[in-house]
């Protein structure tokens, strides 16, 4: 039996490798949609592009068409549906630098976008949702054109040289609809990326998704002639070739997201994505615990503990604790003040500044001390 097996095996193997690979590869296409369309957005606004993606996810019929939507934005930081922007982004720096901050409706972590980043979104029926398939399609397409060491790891990141992260993945799933999108860093400003994704907030206790930081590198460092246009072309072609189609104006074209006629209701999605309530208000509840020690007051080294609870992006309570009993009366007064005045304060500059002013006025009327400000740091 063994003898026959090996001799037959040898002669048959050669004949079968060619035929079985070909048939095997083509047989999996039975599970693909009949049609595929490549869309390239003409907008460079993160909000407009996210709105388009969400509109398609809600309204488009994916039963026999898969879509690949590609775009790039002017500088923006985008975090996941269940993330805490204060924890993930350096918000003050973003606002001074004029960098947009946006919350996606998909899960996953925080990424920095600029014109050197390609965004890819595979919108398909839930039945055809398959992240690995999408990632491998892009990796294969890029590797046919450029000689790069790219792999997909088990966290669904694309790694360059088995080390540098060049892509982050996120997905959104519904009953019949799904999309899987990811970034592709080919020429971003990496130093800006590190500064913006380094949040100064600490002492946070929350259940929000935490981003996993990784070293990044631009693909262009290893593929010098890479451009947005070439990437879109190579990836789009590959997407269509998988169902034996060439790029034509019917199956690959530009698209203007903000076209209410073509996408009725998109303006509402857009305004929601830009609203404070969505970007900051959807943050899972968290609390801040900070400790300030080393201040000396009348010969006693004090330690001040603060606890701030934030729900839906609003401060709901502040409380203090000081380890100096002589000042207990002050601490009590402040805690009372907070419980009376802090009910639902948006965690942003204006409301907090107002609170600080009110607090200082309140203390001044009580104490008439000259260096009141020096005592408290709101």
């Amino acid at each position: 039996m063994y003898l026959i097996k090996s001799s037959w095996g040898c002669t048959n193997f050669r004949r079968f490798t060619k035929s079985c690979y070909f048939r095997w590869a083509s047989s999996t296409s039975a599970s693909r949609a009949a049609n595929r369309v490549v869309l390239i957005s003409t907008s460079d606004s993160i909000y407009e592009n996210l709105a388009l993606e969400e509109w398609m996810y809600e309204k488009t019929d994916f039963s026999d068409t898969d879509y690949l939507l590609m775009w790039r934005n002017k500088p923006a930081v985008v975090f996941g549906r269940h993330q805490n922007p204060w924890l993930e982004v350096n918000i003050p720096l973003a606002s001074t630098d004029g960098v947009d901050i946006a919350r996606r409706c998909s899960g996953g972590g925080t990424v920095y976008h600029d014109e050197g980043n390609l965004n890819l979104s595979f919108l398909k029926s839930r039945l055809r949702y398959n992240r690995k398939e999408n990632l491998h399609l892009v990796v294969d397409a890029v590797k046919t054109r450029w000689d790069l060491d790219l792999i997909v790891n088990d966290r669904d990141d694309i790694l360059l040289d088995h080390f540098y992260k060049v892509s982050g993945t996120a997905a959104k799933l519904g009953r019949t609809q799904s999309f899987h999108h990811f970034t592709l860093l080919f020429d971003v400003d990496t130093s800006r990326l590190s500064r913006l994704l380094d949040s100064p907030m600490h002492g946070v206790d929350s259940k929000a998704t935490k981003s996993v930081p990784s070293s990044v590198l631009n693909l262009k460092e290893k593929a010098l002639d890479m451009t947005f246009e070439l990437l879109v072309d190579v990836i789009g072609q590959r997407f269509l070739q998988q169902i034996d189609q060439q790029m034509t104006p019917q199956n690959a074209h530009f698209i203007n997201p903000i076209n209410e006629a073509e996408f009725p209701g998109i303006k509402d999605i857009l305004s929601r994505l830009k609203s404070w309530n969505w970007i900051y208000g959807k943050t899972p509840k968290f609390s801040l615990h900070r400790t300030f020690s080393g201040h000396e007051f009348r010969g006693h080294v004090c330690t001040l503990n603060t606890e701030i609870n934030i729900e839906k992006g609003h401060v709901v309570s502040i409380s203090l604790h000081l380890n100096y009993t002589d000042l207990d009366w002050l601490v009590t007064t402040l805690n009372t003040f907070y419980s009376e005045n802090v009910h639902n304060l948006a965690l942003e500059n204006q409301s907090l500044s107002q609170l600080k002013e009110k607090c200082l006025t309140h203390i001044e009327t009580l104490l008439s001390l000259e260096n009141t400000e020096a005592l408290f740091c709101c």
Partner: protein
Amino acid sequence: AQNQPFHHSRPSGWLACCCSYHNGQNKARLGQVALPLQWRTFMTSADLFDIVQYKLSDIGEGIREVIIVEWYVKPGDKVNQFDSVCEVKSDKASVTITSRYDGFVRKLYHEVDAVALVGQPLLDIEIEESAESEKQEDVREIDGGSVSKDEEDKKSLATPAVRRLAIENKISLSDVIGTGKDGRVLKEDVIRYLESKQVAQFEKSSASKDVPSSQSTSIPQTPLGKSIPTSAAKVEFPAQPVSSPAQVGEDRTVPLKGVNKAMFKIMSEALKIPPFGYYDEVDVSQLVDMRKRLKVIAQQRGIQLTYMPIFIKAVSLSLLQYPILNSSLDAASEHITYKASHNIGVAMDTPEGLLVPSIKNVQSLSIFEIAAELNRLQSLGLAGKLGTAELSGTTFSLSNIGAIGGTYARPIIMPPNVAIGAIGKIQILPRFAAQGAIKEAHIMNISWSADHRVIDGATMARFSNLWKQYLEEPTTFLLNLK
């Protein structure tokens, strides 16, 4: 079954009657698919609502737990089927969970930010049932339960509603094969029995009609595996079906019942399997010769020898070398069980629809014994008498679609099996022999589908090669005689 999607909870104090629910053990995990229409409660109170625990179903990607991000409903809200009830998150994905039912939300099991496990209850929904019929049946139930004429009926387990259905249709429950837990007779079983009885009557009445012979043409009505057209030169259209043509001009809506319903459920389950196909052609010229000679001998023993028993035995011999193809996948617990018996299922086109009875322990049977068993199953299939014993326990399936026509197919894997083969028709085609001469060869195509979660292409290819080798060189069978 550990992964039943929901469990019927009844408030205490109601009349405790047995309640039939579809158990997934017997029919390839059918129990995993929700069947709200089957739920019944028998109660004395006027309240006619069912509270169902809606469990978090598998969202795929091997995810076992998620975190609740947001609730879109609260207790007391009216919810319709397909309305969003909550948003959950896994590592990378944000998933919207939608309701499977129409009803009212009664209880939420988790708070926001809590961990929810797949397979555990997410929320309670109170489902409305059709009030009128329930009320009437309640009254009759109490009467009918105590008056039970037939002693035998008491022995077969069935709910009062099922018994009433049997009585109305004048059938004895002991004649009906129960597919529920502990052999319980379910409403579906009664309906299936009734349909098969009707079909049997119809068959008798139509036997006198002109039924084309199975020699030269392929007939849609006969079970697969009876004959394979060996001539490719003559192209003949299949004979017209024997049954009368359907009414023209009127739509007809019928609920999925019996075998069709079972097939619908199995196929919906099968959709979860990531299949891959592997196709090849087999030169069965030597086999055709061999069968001509053996057929005569078999007929003397009163057995119809077709190619199918030979294919089945070859599959079993090949499975000995690649046992992973004879395994059973428990996707929920991520275990595969290498099955010791080769229970090869043979797809049959019966008057009831597609059924796949299996031949048990093929590894210990000779080709004769397989042929005899196949004949027996075919006659049972024709008579509509294939029971659970025949229909369950399949570990690997074969479909002879070639008997009807066709060369390639993409057969659907029946869970929890991991592979299936579809045999195309044998055609006579020219092939090259030694020194470039052209010879006539009998070519048959085989299409395998396998579950890519468990089987890789190389294994499938090697298994197929081995099977092919047995068929191309039938004398190799001799070397495996034990």
